[in-house]
């Protein structure tokens, strides 16, 4: 019987991961296109491509830093409220 339960859990996990990845890609594109391709030409130049790669890595580094810093706050908030900290560890 718990087959249906784990199937639905897997589906939820997959969709969560997918929408998280989609949000990240969307933001990376938004920022990096703005920064790296100020005047779109007939094709992406090699310097634009290099800029894009750096920009992606930079954005993800920023994401990781924000994530770490924000989770510290969130955890402190949760600890102060005396609630369950279990959720935070699994992100």
């Amino acid at each position: 019987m718990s087959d249906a339960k784990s199937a639905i859990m897997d589906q939820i996990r997959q969709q969560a991961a997918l929408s998280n990845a989609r949000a990240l890609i969307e933001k990376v594109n938004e920022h990096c296109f703005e920064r790296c391709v100020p005047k779109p030409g007939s094709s992406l130049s090699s310097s634009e491509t290099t800029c894009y790669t750096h920009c992606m890595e930079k954005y993800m580094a920023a994401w990781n830093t924000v994530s770490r810093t924000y989770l510290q706050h969130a955890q402190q908030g949760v600890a102060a409220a005396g609630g369950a900290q279990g959720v935070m560890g699994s992100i």
Partner: protein
Amino acid sequence: MDSISPEVAEGLKNLSPRDKQELNTFVTQENQKAQIQATIHSLTDLCFRKCITSKISAGQLDRSEQPCVQNCVDRYMDANMVVIRHLEQMRTMQ
């Protein structure tokens, strides 16, 4: 969004109370996680705009960008607190 397959939907009807409870908790937790992730996305958006202002020439955050991003999040949380405290004050004034 993918839809639920008929077999799974059928199986969901026959879940034990315990499984239902477990599923409920799981969904609540996933929801919380999704909300936290959404906040992280919007904070990254905001802080990238504020802190990464010079020409992008390397893949890592440089010496000034790294602390800027950290401060950006910390000050955002402080500012958030100011709003909450002020609203609280307004509420008790009435």
